[in-house]
């Protein structure tokens, strides 16, 4: 660091100023340094908690969850060393203020000046992460409108090697990509997702939807398969369901697309991995 360290503690040289403002400033600075250390360790603990509780899959692709282990370890390491460093500093100044012939030494490595405002910003993830219950993106996070054709964005990867009953929402949409919908007539399906409806949907039709993420929720895209179920009005927006039935080409929002004709729908708990990974 090429910071020119401005000697902030010149008051040591003339003792008459010793009791006033600067001492108070020094105490505040120490407090701020400790808050910084607390934030580092707090963020480390928060990440560890996220990993242990499985909440981490609400935020990132499971494939990259190991990166959070790295981050947690680094936070704790940096926090611990910073704490040690501060403690040594504190002990040193204490010794020095006891013998009155002190020579100032604890500025061999200068601290970055710190402000409460920045500390408050750094506390934001911790505050949001602990005060707001951790939930994956759901039906209310779908922005704009979702239509069956949005599958095109997922890419035309093959998923025909997955047996129909085991295909998830993403697999089905990939299978549909290409446009020859008639071939899916009569194929059985068994998918899990959340209920998604829009006012423009026809009566008794809704979508069973999932979010697909490749990296983290920043790139989440909502995907859904249209479902026909004559008691669709009883379903709650956003609740997790398991739909069984067979596909049949039907009209949905004015398009002729494969629509899952449900034979049974059961409400299920939110799956352990709420997102699909393309």
């Amino acid at each position, binding site marked *: 660091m*090429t910071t*020119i360290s401005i000697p902030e503690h010149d008051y040591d040289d003339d003792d008459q100023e010793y009791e006033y403002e600067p001492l108070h400033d020094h105490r505040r600075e120490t407090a701020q340094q400790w808050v910084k250390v607390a934030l580092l360790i707090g963020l480390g603990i928060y990440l560890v908690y996220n990993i242990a509780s499985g909440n981490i899959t609400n935020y990132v692709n499971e494939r990259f969850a190991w990166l959070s282990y790295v*981050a947690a370890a680094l936070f704790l390491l*940096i926090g611990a*060393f910073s704490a040690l*460093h501060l403690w040594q500093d504190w002990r040193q100044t204490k010794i020095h203020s006891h013998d009155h012939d002190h020579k100032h030494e604890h500025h061999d490595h200068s601290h970055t000046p710190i402000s409460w405002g*920045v500390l408050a910003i750094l506390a934001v993830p911790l505050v949001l992460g602990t005060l707001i219950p951790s939930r994956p993106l759901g039906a209310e*996070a779908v922005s704009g409108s979702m239509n069956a054709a949005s599958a095109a964005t997922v890419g035309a990867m093959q998923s025909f090697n997955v047996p129909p009953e085991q295909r998830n929402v993403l697999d089905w949409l990939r299978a549909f990509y290409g446009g020859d919908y008639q071939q899916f007539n009569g194929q059985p399906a068994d998918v899990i997702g959340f209920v998604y409806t829009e006012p423009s949907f026809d009566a008794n039709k809704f979508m069973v939807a999932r979010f697909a993420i490749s*990296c*983290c929720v920043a790139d989440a895209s909502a995907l859904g398969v249209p479902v026909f179920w004559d008691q669709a009005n009883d379903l709650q927006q956003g609740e997790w369901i398991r739909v069984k039935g067979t596909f049949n080409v039907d009209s949905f929002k004015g398009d002729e697309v494969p629509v899952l004709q449900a034979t049974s729908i059961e409400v299920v708990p939110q799956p352990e991995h709420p997102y699909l990974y393309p």
Partner: protein
Amino acid sequence: MNATASLPLRRLILLIVGLALAVILLMALLGTGSDFGTILNTFSTRFLGIFIEAIPFLLLGTVASGLIDNFVSADDIARWMPRNPVLATLAGTFMGFLFPVCECGVVPVVRRLYAKGLPVSVGITFLLAAPALNPIALVSTYVAFGFGAVLIGRFMFTALVALAVGLVFAYAGRPQDVLRPTTLVPVMGGDGTGDVIPLYARTPRKPLLAGLRDSIVSAGDEFYEMGRYLILGSLLAAAMQTLISQDVLLALGRGPVISVLVMQALAFVLSVCSTVDSFLALAFTGTFTTGSILAFLTFGPMVDIKSTLMFLGVYKQRTVLYLILLPLLMTLLIGVWINLNVAF
């Protein structure tokens, strides 16, 4: 670097936070159909997603910068530099692979290198290229986008722009026109061995363990410096995704020129560290053109608010203007060209 940056920067940060909060509250009050609780929940999930995915890279960056700070002296770098100016400029482009610094870590390093007699143009190329052309930024871009057009484009265009701007200065700039007098002294002094600025006096190498300890402690300081930009940037990106309707974003993000300008402005204002900006860019991939995403990823690491403030400590004001305008125009051209000619 704190001395030059702190006051206006703090006001700016407060302003951005205030504005972001105001926007969030306003949108929440106006209501987008759902109630405040669900909006806050979605917002929080989106924000934490970006933050959690990005934070390992930010921390690795801070540790790397701490290690460079404690173990690599500017003398070493000056000694390894090729003597031929074209070769040196090329080496400057890829020096980031040896020293994974982000755009905030690179300025102090460049300043020290100038004091050791590094040619002006090589320093400029290094300054512009290193934040994006380094292993940490490479891996984070890969995690965010996978192997493909964005990853390759980012690194190709960064190298291109950095080299071009460096060569402009190699042929058109004399050190006394480019550098501030305080940076200039050792450059003009020739070999740079004299103790012109006591700040750069050669310090004895630290023992390994003490150096490691100090690196980790200074990583904590660096996190304090850089973490705020990541958090503010993530807050803004999450707020945009949660509160602004897809239609509005699409209207901005589909225009081949306007989308690039918007993303460049965002890159400049957000000042997010180059090791993690991929994750913010990811939030815009659904709605913005590929050219604009690439402009964000190439222009952002070169120039933003916080690096501009730091540039002013090394270069003359007019140089800083060129350092902003040249990359701005070049990445704008590249972005628009991609939008018009390469269909994704």
